[in-house]
């Protein structure tokens, strides 16, 4: 028995030695697993625990922070083939396996048959015969509980020590692992958020920075490098390098703002321009915030700088297009408006305020204010036009007058347009209002000018008649003289004892003839001095000219001028105002006579010709042998108020030219080969005749 005992003893010693060896080996292995995933470390430690305590099962439960919940994991792996999920057990309800947590010390349960060991928390099919549980402490706190069970012999202190050593070794590794993982996770999160920030800065064109309060950069974000066109690889720019990039015109403003911020320890905010080496200009918006130390001294300045170039450009474009529109409205005197369906104003352009004489500062006028400015006589038509837009949903136009407070009157032309929604209902009325005062004035002026022209023509005719008074009187006097002589003769032929009836009859006939001749001349004079223009009619130019020659005949004789005519036989008829064309010829003849006033060494001759020049044009010339025009004067003779005559008004030729233009003709002057000047005018052949011609086939 001794021997058996000895053998048993020796066996026990050998076992103990081998256990120690196993343990040391296990611990070494565990340490070598430091770089392995945590799960593998735990698996390894618990398998070794089974081995070292000669147990059949092993479990590990993690304990939550306030030691109220246990999460059970079961070993060995073979028994976890059922892929048992970790079981969560409130401490209070957990079975006797959790006693070590409750007692806060290792617990050995060697009693036979412990059927209720896993009352709660035991995996199905696991039955504990005996077990031993050890809590794992981290400081004062229990973080886990591990247990082994179903050893064939009772558990003893040695088993407790074995398990505790293994668990401590394992737990240290687990803790280190958890710390590393947390650190790694934190670093990852930090990296991610940094990436987000960089992306966010890039997307919003926002750079951030810090400087030491003297302008020396301490930190620049990547986007700030990009905004300022610096290379991040080159490191932080110096103070001077960053200041150089600021637009020269904005540098003073920039420095002033930051000086104030630093001195007064307040936020700095400003917009300025930066200029890149390639000459491109960026607009940026910067906010700087002073950071103070515990003593209230400025420690550093942090801030953001946003590239607002795109916004600025857009603003600029918008402002420009608004300015263009306003300018266009101003130039064209066009105002625009929008109003709702009750004519309540919704929008008035600047020009419209100006047109109505309202102050834009006072805001939109009321519905009635514009109406009050409209001339009382025009209000009805204005309102009618507006209601046409609203009631009939059609565009409508109206011309009306605006009476400004100072009494000035403006003419405006308004257009209204209905804006309908999808259902065809009226939403708004929009429209324009054009100030047409100037156009109206121009129209009035044109009418007035036309009247003035007519008046001038008349004055010119009357004044020519005035110049010709003596000549005309003579011309009337001649036939009258004939009448008187014939009358006297007639009486004499009839007197005495044997009246000479034949002679008397002859004289009477001449009296009638001469009387008519006088009446005709007076008729022509009356036509020429009439104020109103005659309607145009078909004229024989030769006849038209011939009619007025008697009026200037005496004037010509008195000035020793010989008037000769050379009329074409087949001159086309023209369409014209007889009196106006006679006026033209009279002016030209009188000018010709006057031009020869100082001629003493040659005949004073005035030649009037007429002929067809084109297939559809007649030309009349009036040629004198006078002093001629100097080139200077010939350019200006047709200008109004240009005259070479001391008493002349200078309107004659200007009027002649406008008369011919009104007849679709032309008037010009040429110098003669010899002495003197020739005035030419052309008139188109009367077209009615051509129209009446049958079409040629």
């Amino acid at each position, binding site marked *: 028995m001794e021997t058996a005992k000895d053998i048993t003893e020796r066996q026990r010693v050998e076992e103990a030695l081998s256990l120690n060896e196993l343990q040391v080996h296990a611990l070494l292995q565990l340490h070598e697993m430091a770089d392995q995933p945590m799960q593998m470390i735990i698996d390894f430690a618990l398998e070794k625990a089974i081995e070292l305590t000669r147990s059949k099962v092993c479990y590990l439960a993690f304990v939550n922070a306030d030691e109220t919940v246990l999460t059970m994991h079961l070993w060995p792996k073979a028994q976890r083939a059922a892929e048992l999920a970790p079981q969560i057990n409130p401490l209070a309800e957990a079975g006797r396996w959790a006693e070590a947590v409750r007692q806060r010390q290792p617990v050995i349960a060697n009693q036979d048959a412990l059927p209720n060991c896993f009352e709660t928390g035991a995996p199905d099919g696991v039955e504990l015969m005996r077990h031993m549980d050890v809590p794992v402490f981290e400081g004062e706190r229990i973080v886990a509980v591990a247990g082994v069970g179903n050893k064939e012999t009772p558990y003893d202190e040695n088993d407790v020590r074995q398990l505790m050593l293994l668990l401590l070794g394992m737990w240290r590794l687990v803790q280190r692992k958890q710390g590393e993982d947390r650190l790694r996770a934190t670093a990852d999160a930090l990296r991610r958020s940094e990436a987000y920030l960089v992306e966010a800065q890039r997307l919003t064109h926002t750079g951030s920075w810090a400087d030491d309060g003297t302008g020396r950069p301490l930190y620049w974000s990547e986007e700030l490098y990009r905004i300022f066109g610096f290379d991040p690889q080159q490191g932080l720019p110096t103070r001077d390098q960053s200041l150089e990039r600021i637009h020269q015109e904005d540098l003073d403003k920039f420095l002033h703002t930051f000086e104030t911020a630093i001195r007064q320890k307040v936020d700095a905010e400003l917009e300025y321009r930066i200029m890149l080496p390639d000459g491109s200009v960026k607009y940026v918006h910067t906010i700087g915030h002073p950071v103070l130390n515990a003593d209230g001294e400025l420690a550093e300045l942090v801030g953001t700088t946003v590239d607002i170039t795109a916004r600025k450009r857009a603003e600029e474009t918008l402002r420009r297009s608004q300015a263009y529109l306003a300018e266009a409205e101003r130039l064209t005197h066009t105002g625009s408006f929008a109003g709702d369906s009750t004519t309540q104003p919704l929008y008035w352009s600047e020009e419209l305020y100006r047109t109505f004489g309202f102050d834009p500062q006072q805001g939109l006028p009321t519905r009635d204010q514009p109406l009050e400015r409209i001339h009382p006589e025009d209000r009805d038509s204005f309102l009618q036009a507006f209601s046409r837009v609203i009631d009939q949903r059609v565009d409508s136009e109206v011309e009306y007058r605006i009476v400004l407070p100072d009494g000035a009157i403006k003419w405006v032309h308004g257009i209204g347009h209905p804006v309908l929604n999808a259902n065809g209902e009226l939403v708004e009325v929009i429209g324009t209002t054009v100030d047409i005062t100037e156009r109206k004035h121009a129209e009035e002026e044109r009418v007035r000018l036309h009247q003035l022209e007519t008046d001038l023509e008349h004055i010119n005719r009357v004044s020519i008649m005035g110049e010709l008074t*003596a000549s005309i*009187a*003579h011309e009337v*006097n*001649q*036939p*009258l*003289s*004939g*009448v*008187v*002589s*014939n009358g*006297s*003769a*007639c009486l*004499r*032929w009839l007197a*005495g004892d*044997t009246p*000479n009836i034949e*002679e008397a009859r*002859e*004289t009477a006939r*001449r009296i009638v*003839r*001469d009387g008519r*001749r006088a009446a005709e001349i007076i008729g022509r004079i009356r036509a020429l001095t009439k104020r109103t223009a005659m309607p145009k009619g078909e004229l024989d130019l030769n006849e038209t000219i011939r009619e007025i020659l008697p009026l200037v005949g*005496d004037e010509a*004789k*008195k000035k*020793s001028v*010989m008037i000769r005519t050379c009329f074409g036989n087949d001159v086309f008829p023209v369409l014209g105002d007889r009196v106006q064309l006679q006026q033209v010829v009279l002016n030209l003849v009188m000018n010709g006579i006057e031009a020869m006033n100082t001629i003493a060494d040659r005949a004073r001759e005035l030649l009037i010709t007429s002929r067809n020049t084109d297939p559809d044009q007649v030309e009349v010339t009036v040629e004198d042998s006078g002093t001629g025009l100097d080139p200077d004067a010939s350019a200006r003779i047709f200008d109004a108020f240009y005259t070479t005559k001391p008493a002349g008004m200078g309107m004659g030729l200007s009027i002649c030219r406008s008369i011919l233009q009104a007849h679709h003709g032309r008037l010009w002057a040429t110098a003669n080969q010899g002495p003197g000047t020739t005035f030419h005018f052309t008139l188109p052949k009367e077209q009615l005749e051509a129209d009446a011609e049958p079409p040629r086939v």
Partner: protein
Amino acid sequence: MQNPRESRPVIAIVDDDPSVREGLHSLVRSAGWRAETFCSAQEFLARTRAEAPSCLILDLQLPDLSGLDLQKRLTAIDLEIPIVFLTGHGDIPASVQAMKAGAIEFLTKPVDEENLVRAIQEAIERDRRTRQKHAEIHDLQSRYDTLTAREREVMQQVISGLLNKQVAAEMNITEFTVKIHRGRVMRKMRADSLAGLVRMAESLGIRSHKR
């Protein structure tokens, strides 16, 4: 009513206006004179009739040559025709000029019949006198033409108021010879006194011989 006789005065009418011309033509004839009409000064000057008219009714304003110019031209060729001027308008400077140059009258159209007839009559009277004077001078001239050169010389000395003795000394002949010449001059010239002879010499345009 009157028989056309060559002795009736001829009145020339120069006017470019047919109404005036024909009216005056009829009026002049109705007053019993003969009338000739011309429509310009040139036409008048180119007239073919040998006999000069007794009176010229002349329009002041003529197209080629004015009335005043024609008057000058006639004086220049010693054609002394009394002129009655007609004008459309009372042109005072022209009328003064015309009257100075010897016009009978200056009438304004339309002419008063009586004034015209009176003016024509006056013109005819002056023409008659002129013609008479011309005839007398013509007679004197033919008598003067019969004088010898010596007799003409004596006549010139005598009308200068020299005594026979002085004439003799001047001509270096005897006083007796002077008396013979002088007697013959008086007889040939039919002068009844020295005063008569002096008048005749004046009419003939003979200048006295004063030195």
